């Protein structure tokens, strides 16, 4: 944990119960994989925050080392790395994602 950007990433993860590191924004995803995870989170109906890695090359590279995961998007729930696009899709289809969110006390948006 000697990379200075790790502290910044950790602070971002600590600040949001559900945090997605993605390319682009929820409204304008810049990558199909990021777009798919956004769709899933919207379907799951939980509040979430996002970090656009395209705005910060240090975060973009740093997050890959932080999690030992080579690709983006990356989803964190209550500080824990849950997975990338494939795992999130698989977990959503099997219902595991919804269970995980409920177990972690993430409740659905009233909206």
């Amino acid at each position: 944990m000697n990379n200075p950007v790790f502290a910044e990433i950790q602070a971002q993860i600590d600040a949001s119960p559900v945090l997605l590191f993605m390319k682009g924004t929820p409204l304008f995803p810049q990558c199909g994989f990021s777009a798919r995870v956004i769709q899933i989170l919207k379907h799951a109906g939980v509040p979430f925050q996002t970090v656009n890695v395209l705005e910060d090359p240090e975060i973009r590279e740093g997050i890959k080392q932080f999690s030992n995961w080579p690709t983006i998007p990356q989803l964190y729930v209550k500080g824990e790395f849950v997975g990338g696009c494939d795992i999130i899709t698989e977990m959503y289809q099997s219902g595991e994602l919804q269970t995980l969110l409920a177990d972690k006390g993430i409740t659905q948006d009233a909206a």
Partner: protein
Amino acid sequence: MAMPASEIEVLIKTAFPDAQITIEDLAGDNDHFAATVISEAFRGVSRVKQHQMVYAALQGRMGGELHALALQTAAPE
């Protein structure tokens, strides 16, 4: 920025000799693949860890010359 499926399969097979591997070239461009890897090595291991093991087998190519590899991993039934 492309990598033939055969090369991916060799790297995975080297790391997981018992693995059943299926690789599909999704777009016919040697750049967008879907792979299924079934190996005893994954038994009792979390999904994140399973994928990390496959990425390690690919020796840093994932996210670099290998842009898109949709991955499904499992232990044999």
